Every structure is written in structure tokens, then in C-alpha cells.
């Protein structure tokens, strides 16, 4: 069964039978429909936008849907549904809810140092904190990111079109052919992003990584990837730095030694050796989707995981991958490498797994937390796991 997507017109690109003309029509219909429903919703004068509603404080937040957790030198910070961000300085015994200006679902959080951190989420929202997670400000969201992406694609189209003209002049058929294909890809991508611009901030950011308190990268659905060098004041799409013409989803980004890695939909794997300025595709061991990627602190072990219990490890910076023995059919949603070097994974059916042989084989922990989405080490032989039922601390037994 093909992916049942509705808005991702770029997927149609794979099916060569779809004509350009048909595609344009679909775009047009989609846009007209969206404008129509926007008009309907505009009639309701009470139309609320989650990007404009501050997150509500509630005692129930620690037990609500949470999607990421990070142990930032003893302060645990979790993010999740309805703009919830919580932090705890006493190993999860007590949680304080942060001030957050939006109510959208947040998917990932990252700290560059003790004070400065970023969180990303649905509607492509990027939040920033300068006080270790107590208060957050919105830096950007999909309403700005989509036009940025579109402008960048137009720019690239121009460049490639000019290059094509040059190639035509130079009578270089090989280059001409290559450029024509690239242009066609770009055109698809551009139409897709153009539709997103019409529809509003529909697309989520899924993960982020910061080199320091100024330079970082956010990644997300439909090939969304942007970088900043000024602590998030401005964002630049990195579309020309990475070869993802189909606009597949990026799900995870991690640093391993001096290299960066991105994992995503349909086995996407990229490596960057220049902190994200350029990305090289890796030979992927997997046709299904990776939901994330993690690396050990000593940079010797890289673990990518995802759909249907797929877990792969690489000891050579992604050059070669081997399949891990996990004995599970459930998708693995999150992984982390603990201080002792053991690898821990959480799968959606709630099984927690641990490997003490650097990812080759995993055994199951006794705790079971259905709907686990993310986990991190507690710093003292334990895991802090978040998911559908909120946050839970689990002891890792040897």
C-alpha cells in the first residue's frame, strides 16, 4: 500500500505516469479548496490559532503527551503537546512548567549550553530560551519558513535555468540532461512548497542540533532544513546543500565526533563533515523509515532506528551499517547512549531495550511504557522516558 498522504504532492513524482498537467491541476484544486475552507473558517470570528495562544499551566502536564526529553547537566527539560515545556532540577520529583508563548505540539528540544536552548515543533515553530528553559520566546514558525523555502527554491531554479542555457549554448548534452532532471525535481519541490505557503504553517519540524549558542540546524517534514548562524535571529534554508529532491521527511539529527548525521524517511541517511554546510548521502541499509539516530559520546558507535523494529549500527561514521538483533516488530521511536556506553532504545509498544555490546544485540528491560516517544539518561543508571502517558523514570537493571 502506498503512503496515504494527502498534501504531499511531491510524492507523486515517483509515479512517472502522472503528467505535469495533471499535477498542476491537483495543485490548483488543492489551493482552491484550501482557500475555500479558509474562507469558511474565517467566518467563525472566534477562530483561534495555536501559534498565538500561550501554553496553559496545569498540574496534569507531567502526565500529558510529551515528545522529547533532554538531560541538560542535571536539569531535565521535556517538551510535548499544547506547548508544554517542563523542567525539573531534582530528577523528576517535581516539575515546573515553563512560560511558552504557543500551544502547538513541540517535538524536540536541544540545549547549546546551560542557559541557551531551542525547541521545535509542529507548524514549524522554533522557540528559544536564554534562561535554561524557564521562559521561551518564539523565533520563527511555518508562516515565515515556508516563504523562505519558496524563495530559496525560486533562486535555485533561476540558477539552474541559467546553467541550462549555458549548457545548451555549449552543446553539452550530458550536462544538459542532468540539469533538466534537476530542474524538473526542483519544479516539483517548488510546487509542493508553494502549496504549503498557501495552506499555512502545516508542516512540522522534527529535530534540531546546535554546534554552539549561535550556530544550529533545524530539520523537519517535507525536506525542511534550515540553518542559523546568529542564534536563530535569521534562518537560511539549506536546500541546495543536501540532495533530497523528493522532499522526504528528516526525523533525526545527531553529532558523532566531528561529523553530523541526519536520518529520515525511506532510509534517508546523510553525513556532513563541515557542520552542515554540505551533506553527503550515505548508502542506506534500510528501505523503510528511520525515526531517529543517536551516537555514543566517544563517537565510535552510531545507531539508526525506526519503522518495524529496524535498528542498525555503524562503527565507522556511517560508511557501513549492520543490523542489530532486537527481536521486535514494533517501531523504535527513540534511542540514547548512556554514560556507561550502553545503548537504550524505546519502541512504540512500550518495550525498552538495552545493549551492552555497542548495539549488536539488545535485551528487554522489565519496564514497559506503551507509547514511549523519547528517552534520555538520568545520569545515575536510569532512563527518563516520555510519551503518551507523560514522563516516567525507569531504573536500568544490569
Amino acid at each position, binding site marked *: 500500500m502506498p503512503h496515504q498522504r494527502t498534501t504531499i504532492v511531491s510524492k507523486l513524482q515517483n509515479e512517472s505516469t502522472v503528467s505535469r498537467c495533471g499535477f498542476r491541476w491537483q495543485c490548483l484544486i488543492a489551493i482552491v479548496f484550501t482557500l475555500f475552507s479558509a474562507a469558511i473558517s474565517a467566518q467563525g470570528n*472566534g477562530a483561534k490559532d495555536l501559534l498565538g495562544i500561550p501554553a496553559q499551566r496545569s498540574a496534569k502536564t507531567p502526565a500529558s503527551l510529551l515528545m522529547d526529553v533532554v538531560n541538560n547537566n542535571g536539569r531535565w527539560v521535556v517538551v510535548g503537546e499544547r506547548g508544554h515545556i517542563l523542567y525539573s532540577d531534582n530528577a523528576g520529583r517535581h516539575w515546573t512548567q515553563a512560560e511558552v508563548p504557543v500551544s502547538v505540539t513541540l517535538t524536540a528540544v536541544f540545549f547549546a549550553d546551560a542557559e541557551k536552548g531551542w525547541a521545535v515543533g509542529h507548524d514549524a515553530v522554533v522557540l528559544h530560551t536564554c534562561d535554561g528553559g524557564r521562559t521561551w520566546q518564539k523565533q520563527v514558525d511555518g508562516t515565515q519558513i515556508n516563504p523562505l523555502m519558496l524563495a530559496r527554491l525560486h533562486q535555485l531554479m533561476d540558477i539552474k535555468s541559467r546553467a541550462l542555457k549555458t549548457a545548451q549554448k555549449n552543446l553539452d548534452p550530458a550536462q544538459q540532461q542532468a540539469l533538466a532532471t534537476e530542474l524538473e525535481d526542483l519544479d516539483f519541490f517548488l510546487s509542493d512548497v508553494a502549496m504549503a505557503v498557501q495552506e499555512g504553517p502545516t508542516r512540522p519540524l522534527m529535530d534540531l542540533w546546535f554546534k554552539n549558542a549561535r550556530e544550529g540546524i533545524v530539520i523537519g517534514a517535507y525536506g525542511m532544513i534550515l540553518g542559523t548562524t546568529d542564534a536563530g535571529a535569521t534562518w537560511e534554508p539549506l536546500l541546495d546543500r543536501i540532495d533530497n529532491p523528493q522532499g522526504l*521527511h528528516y526525523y533525526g539529527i545527531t553529532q558523532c565526533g566531528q561529523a553530523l548525521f541526519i536520518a529520515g524517511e525511506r532510509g534517508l541517511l546523510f553525513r556532513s563533515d563541515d557542520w552542515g554546510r554540505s551533506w553527503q548521502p550515505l548508502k542506506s541499509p534500510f528501505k523503510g523509515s528511520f525515526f531517529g539516530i543517536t551516537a555514543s559520546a566517544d563517537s565510535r558507535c552510531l545507531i539508526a532506528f525506526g519503522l518495524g523494529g529496524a535498528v542498525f549500527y555503524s562503527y565507522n561514521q556511517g560508511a557501513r551499517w549492520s543490523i542489530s538483533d532486537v527481536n521486535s516488530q514494533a517501531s523504535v521511536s527513540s534511542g540514547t547512549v548512556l554514560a556507561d556506553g550502553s545503548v537504550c532504545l524505546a519502541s512504540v509498544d512500550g518495550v525498552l531495550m538495552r545493549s551492552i555490546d555497542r548495539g549488536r544485540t539488545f535485551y528487554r528491560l522489565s519496564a514497559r511504557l506503551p507509547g514511549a516517544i523519547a528517552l534520555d539518561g538520568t545520569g545515575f543508571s536510569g532512563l527518563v522516558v516520555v510519551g503518551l502517558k507523560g514522563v516516567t523514570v525507569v531504573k536500568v537493571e544490569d
Partner: protein
Amino acid sequence: MKPPLIVSILFRQRLLWLGLFILLTLFFSYHALHIKPEASFLRMIPSDHPYIQNYLAHQQDLKALGNVVRICVATTDGDIFTAAYLETLKQMTEAVFFISGVDRSALKSLWTPQTRWTEVSEEGFNGGPVIPETYNGSAAALEQVRHNIFKSGEVGILVANDFKSSMIAAPLHDIDPETGAPLDYQRFSEKLEQIRRRFQTNTIQIHITGFAKVVGDLMAGAAQVWLFFAIAFGILIAVLLYHSRCVRSTFIRALTSMVAVIWQLGILKLGGFGLNPYSMLVPFLMFALGVSHGIQMFNTMAHEMISGADKFKAAQQAFQNNWVPGLAALITDCIGFATLLIIRIGVIQDIAVAASIGVAVVAFTDLMFLPLLLSYSGISPRTIKIIKTRAASPVQQPWAFLSRFTRRRWAAGAIIAAALSTAGGIYLRQDIKTGDLSPGAPELRPQSRYNQDNAYINAHYSASSDIFIVMVKTPPAGNSAYPVVVATDQLKWRLLQLKGVQNVITHVDYLKQLNSAYMEGNLKWLAVPRSQTALNNMVLKIPPDVVNPNGALTPMIIFLDDHKAQTLQCVVDAVEAFAAQNNTDTHQFLLAAGNAGIEAATNIEVKKALSTLILLVYSVLGCVCLFAFKSIRATLCVVMPLMLTSVLCEALMAQADIGIKVATLPVIAMGVGIGVDYGIYILYKLLYNKSQGYPLTAAFYRTLITTGRAVVFTGLTLAISVATWIYSPIKFQADMGFLLTFMFLWNMVGAMVLTPALARFIYTQK
């Protein structure tokens, strides 16, 4: 002295009247036999309340949620993963399938094809029936079933959390689609009991819940009312016999009171009314009322016969003496009952109508028919002798004792005691609650079979039985509009903050899950997609029992810990506040459906009605007293003891955990309305005796030995007739019986003790 016109009309044509009464009785008996107990859900709720109006307007759209019977099949032998258990379940599913009234296409158990497991993989959705076609009862097949159940998401819903039971969920047709006949709840419930009897064994336990079962049990409980009636009848005859020692007049009085009940039922049937479990109380009251008026009639007649009158003259005189005060008392009762009409809840209005008809009927049967019959039968000479000796004895002990309450010291003591009780009552009544307080079906007793079944299911499954539904109203297909989706989700979160809210299920939850499912089950996609195109597509994939296919009315299902008034009010307040901020021209959040939602509306209406009702009842009684005595002082003497009773009744309700509800509201009007008779009779006679020149204590003593005796018997007969209800299997009937018994007895004490005590201080100017 020439008898008044009405007396001569009645007694000159005795045979003609008698024949007419007998013919009417036969006519009404025929119709009374056809009266049916009914339990109409709609009549038990305040159908004019805006919440109920909302519910009724959208009842069709909420059907899938509504009328479902859940049959829980539990095994005490291991778990459900045995071939024997699944075989029993299969047979039961088939048996339920064939009960008429079951919506067969929507019947659900582990064996029905729509019970499926699904799994998301990189190929998309996989799925199949939980019990596969290849199932053969082998260990491997059972293991497969266990595996599928885990993947089906039915644990806690169709399968118990402890795997010791599973459900057969049978949605019902309210109207049979083939015959167009409404569902016969009593027959349906009986069919379920047959299944229970057939399949229940030492190892298989069956628990059944659902509205249809509640109604069925209510009807079955109501059928036992005849037993209570028989018991009350027996006790009252014993009391009459003891009081009069005259078999023939006792028989005649019981007969005329029975005739009153027959007339009343016949008239109700002819008027298109049935007898609901609430108005069933009324025939009891009418019977007792008839008996008590019969006592008055008998007393007067006996005294006339002692004075030497023949039976015809005595009966005529009894009628002549009694028809005015009797009619006045009945009219007072009637007005008391009629105040109930202001409460816009069907069953309470039914009580008002039934009681008013009943009172009118008693005026005919016990004021007219009875003296006519007595004029033929007379009273046995032995009885006359007994009464004669009784009247001749100089001081009759209980009455002499009671008459002391007209002395200054005793009166002061009584009044201080009453004031203290009032203060205590006011203090204790602070805890009074609104609505039903016990878990499960509040109509039935906590230890009833139904509530035990319900408790079992509550303990072993995840979904609560107290469901409050908020209706999200939009234009057709508007429930997927992004602003509606966002607002619904926000309301959900607000509700989850409330104490007593266990869980809230909305269509938005499904949209989030679908969003994630479409993205290969990646949980980070578990959010509302902002794309309207995506929302419009996804909403079509939501199961039809969660959203209405036309997308114009979408239920938000709120599961509550209980249905206490406070819990319900919290939800109502939160939703109202949210609706005020978020309702627009295109989408509205409407209250309320679900058992808890309807109860919330009922509570609001009942609470509002209570103060109005008390105010109205007392104003009406005040007016009647003022009219009867033309004196404010007399009015105070009569009404103040009643107020004490009202306060104490509420204190009792608070302490006995009986809430203010549909069943207890009429008690307040009836208790006060009937109670006022006593005071009026006593004070009337007291003032009369006083005007004859007796000092207060002597005047009261004379009142006591005549009217007082009758009042005590009236109070007792009324109390006995309702007291049998305390043993009713229907909880609210028991509550009504308990409170009315208290009120009738206490009103009697008030009239016998407090009225004269107050009179001592109010009439002091001499």
C-alpha cells in the same frame, strides 16, 4: 331543621345514586385493569430545559452512543483464552443476535467480524478479525487470539483489563425498523434474563448493564408495587378493625377507598396517562386519604347513633356534618398537589395530575358513596356499646397528657424544643445535596443486581458508566474545520483539569491518531494537522460511532468518576464558560447529553424548582388558612409547625444522603399539603370549643378526644400506606416512602403538640 339541599338530593334518591356509583365503578374498573406501568425516560427529565432541548434536537445524531446493552461474560476459571470460554461466548453472541430489538449489524463481541486488529507497517495498515476464520480452538489459535486482542486496542473496552471477562455490546433499535413498534423494554429485559439463566454456570458469570436493562429492572420492580399495596391494604384494615371493632363498616370503608383507587386509575387510563414508578405512590395516598375521611365519617355516625339516631338519620347527619370540612380539606390537598405543576418535569406533573384526580375522586367516594352505603349497613351494636363506654370514661389518658401542652410551662418547653430543633435542622440541612449520590443506576438500590453488575464492569474495564456528552454543532462536514478542531481539543484539555473527569474522547483524538498512522505510526506526528485538506480527508476515516457521518454534530464524550451534583456542576460551568468565549456563528459547544449530562440538567432544574416550590406551597397554604380562619394568628399556629417539619425533612435528607431530585421534590409539596389538614382540623375545633367558653386546656382536651383521635388515625394510616415503600427495590420509591412517612408522622406531632402550644402564647390577651 331542614337539611341542606345537597343532603336531601343525595339521601332522597339513595338507590339511584347507589346504582350510578356502582355503574361508574364497573366502568372505571374495566379501564383501570388496562392501565400499564410505564417508565418513559423522557418524562423523568426536565424536557423544557435548554440542555435537554439540545439533546432532543440532536438525539438522532447521538444514536450510536445511546442505547447499548453491555453483557459482560466473566470466567472464574483462569482467563478468557480457553476454548470452552470462547465457545460459550460464541453461543451467547448468537443468542443475543436473535433477540428482537438488537441492531444486528452493530452487535459487537470478540466473535463479530467488526472486532478487528490493525497494525501499521511500512506497507501501510494491516488488519483482520480478532478471531480469525482459521480459529479451531487449538493452543496455537488461542495464542493467536490473545495476540490479536493486544493489537486490537480493545483491552479495557471489549476485553477486561484482567482478561477474565469480555463484552457483548448490543446497540438497540428504539423503534423496530421492520414493524415500526417501539422497543418493549420489559420483554427485552426478560429475554436478557433468559440468556443469563441459560449460560450462567459455576464458572461463567454474567453481568448486564445498559439503559434498557435499567428500564427493564425498573418495570420489574414496579410490578412488585402491587405487593406493597396489598400489605398496606392489610395493615390499614387491621387498624380500622382495631379502631372500630366493626367488621361491616370496616369492610365498607375499605371498599369505598378501593373504589376511589379504581376510579382514579380508570380516569387516568381514559385520560391517556399511564402509571410511572413515581405516580404509583398516588393510589396509595388516595387509598389512605379515603380511609382517613372514612374514619371521620364513621366517628360522626357512631356519635349520632349513640345519641339514638337510626342508621339512616345517622348517616345523613354524618354526611351533613362532614361534607363541608371534608371538602375543604380535600380542596387544600388539591391545591397543595397542584403547585407541583409548575415543575416542568413530566413525572412530577403526572403526580400532580394523578393526585388531583385522586382527591376529586375521594370527594365522591368517601364523602358521598360511603355515607350512602353506611345508611344501609349501619354500625354493629357491639361497636356502639364500646364507643359509648369509651366516651363515658372521665379522663382518657393519652389525650389528657397531650392537653397539658396548652399550659404555659409545657407550651414554653415545646416551643423552645421546636426552636432548638429548627436551629439544629437548619444547621444539619447545610449538607443537603442535589441529585443522586450513589454510583451506578441511581434509580435502583446500590445492592441491586444491576448495580452490582455495573460495579463489576466499572472495576474491570477502563470506561466509566457516568458519561457526559458535549455536542459540537457545525455546518455539515464542518467538524473537520481547523478552528473547530482546535477549539474542541482546547475544551478537552480544560475539562481534563477538573476533579472527577477521568477522560475525554473527541474526534480530534482520532484525527491525531490518523495523522500519526498515515506517517507510518511515527508518534511525533501525533498532532492535529493544520492542513484543511488533510483534516477533511481524515475525518472520513473516523469510525461512525465517534462522529456523525454528516459531520454536523460531533459528540465530545466525557467520562466522569461519578454523577455527584458537584462533579456535574463543575463540568457544566467549565463548558459554559468555554462556550461563551468560543462559540461562533458556525460552531457551538452545546450541553448536554449522556446520562450525566441529562442528570446535570435535571439537577439544575430541580434545584431551581425547590425554592420556588416551597415559596409557592407556603403562600398557597397561608392563603387557605387566612381564608379559613380570617386570622393571622391562627394561620401562624397552623403553618409554623409545618415549617419545622420542612426544615427537619431537609435535615434528614442531608443526613440520610438523599439528594434533592425528581423523586423527593414532590414529597415536599405533598408532605406539607396533606400535613396542613391536621392543623386546620385541630385549630378549628380548638377555637370552636374555646368560643363555647371552655378554657384553653379543657377546650383542647375536648378537641383531642374527637378530632385529635381522628387526626392521629389519619396520620397513622397515611404513614403506613407510604411506609411500605421503604422496602421497594426501586431506590427513589424507597426515598419517597421514607420521607413521606417522616413528614406525615411529624406533621401529626406538630399539629397535636405545637399548634396548641403556639395557641397558648398567641391567644393570650385574656
